[in-house]
């Protein structure tokens, strides 16, 4: 049974929140989505099938030598950071 509290828990695990109205909409939407998910359960006796995680076997994967081929300038990495100091991204103290 899906409840608003459970949905809140799922959202918080992914580090965001929604407002009450949004949770209500989602609860209704879940009803349809779970019915769609039931269609997955309609297909029986598949436990021996290996789940597919990639479209096909790659035949051209090669291990590369452990050589530096490119690097990124720190200034470029920092260019989009909301807060920075010198060569570092600034965040609140992690260890008090």
């Amino acid at each position: 049974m899906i409840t608003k509290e459970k949905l809140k828990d799922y959202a918080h695990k992914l580090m965001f929140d929604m407002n009450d109205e949004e949770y209500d909409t989602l609860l209704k939407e879940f009803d349809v989505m779970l019915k769609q998910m039931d269609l997955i359960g309609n297909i029986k006796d598949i436990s021996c099938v290996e789940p597919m995680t990639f479209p096909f076997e790659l035949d051209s994967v090669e291990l590369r030598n452990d050589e530096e081929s490119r690097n990124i300038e720190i200034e470029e990495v920092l260019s989009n950071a909301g807060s920075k100091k010198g060569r570092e991204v600034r965040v609140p103290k992690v260890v008090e």
Partner: protein
Amino acid sequence: MSYIKGTIEEIRKAMDEKKVTSEELVNESLKLAHTYEKEYNAFVTICDDAKEENNVKDNPLKGIPCAIKDNISTKGVLTTASSNILKNYIPFYDATVVTKLKEAGAISIGKTTLDELAMGGTGTAAHTGIVKNPWDKNRLIGGSSAGSAAAVSLGIVPFALGSDTGDSIRKPAAYGGIVGYKPTYGLISRYGLFPFACSLDHIGCFTRSVKDVAYVLDCLKGKDEKDMTSLDTKTNFINELTNDVKGKKVFYIKEMLDRNNYKDDYDEELEEILNNFDEAMKKCKELGMEVEEVSFDIKLLEAIFPTYFTISCAEATSNNSNLTGIIFGPRGEGKTVEEIMFDARTKGFSELIKRRFVLGSYILQKENQEKLFLNAGRIRRLIVNKMNELFKKYDAMILPAQGAVAPTFRSEDIDKLSNRYLLLENHMAIGNFGGFPSITIPCGFVNKMPIGLSITGAVKKDIDVLNIAYAIEEKYPYKGQIAKEVK
């Protein structure tokens, strides 16, 4: 005479004959982009300073304007993925496809609107507003590559890049009366594409002719050391393009076309779509192709959409975990790093995206993994195995691209549990499950709205798919059509 509204092939010819310059084309393209922007919202960013790179060798795309979906990295140009959480993000590198376009001398005149983070099929979920269908402003163009589809359909550019995880290029192409193509998985590098669901994501293109797809593919194809999933190919698509498809064997799925499967929501529109498909099959036979009906387990067909939704939402939750507002994106407020991230994500994602993420989170809960996530992976394999078996005998699968014309913005009445929705409207994810090359081409009009034909082939047989599409295209009068100009 306006040359920008031609196909790549026509524009190339005009440029080679010195009838038009690249600068004139870019100016015309930019002017159209601005003219239509308020009405259709195809672009997040219009690049008014667009110009050709220096020292470009002669090649078919040299000097030709194009547009790029805004989830593809462009160095120094705002790239938002149509999300508030990236609304100020300016990449410091180009995606490989962007590098290749620049090297070819193609000129990007703008970044196109999408459903936020490419997660949606309507073109209504961008942080800058909804994208409208150029054939009817009361209807959506579809998504997620909504702006790219609208820009090509409006005649602003002859081609645009998109990304396709379930049908995000092919469906809006069908709704917009243009050509939409996604290649074999990996044939076009994805380095620099913001990932949605890595095992399903592809980059592809919108054009107004099948031949133009070959021009774009020849530019973008091939192995990229920055994308370990990319593939090499020896095929020169333009040189190998032929309309001689005599003897090619194609199939359609019986259960998809069986009118008895749509008893609950059968209407005139569906009848016309199915009749149009019957006509298309006649045309295939006239071209000398063998057309056969093949039966497919309907339970597997009904499970395509939930399987796609399960896999994509689950993969999306982890792919988007880097959107924290710490290293890039607007900073959240809070006393700790966790609070800052929580606040940035709460403010940065729209409600629609959050709903998909919550579903992904639900699917990945320990108690649901076996039942949903792993079983979806198993069904994916069963469907792909069946397709691979069929592709041993057939060169392509042909189906209607849709079960309905582009919906109006007010359409709330689509029954998401109906066969019409689950089978006809959402089958194209098969192409993503197996990484199969797949194209949609315009094949007619129903209720004055364009509809499309979907053609899908075996992995690495992109040329077969293009040739069949190229031959069928010649049987219709829709090549090169622009929404605004068809009476």
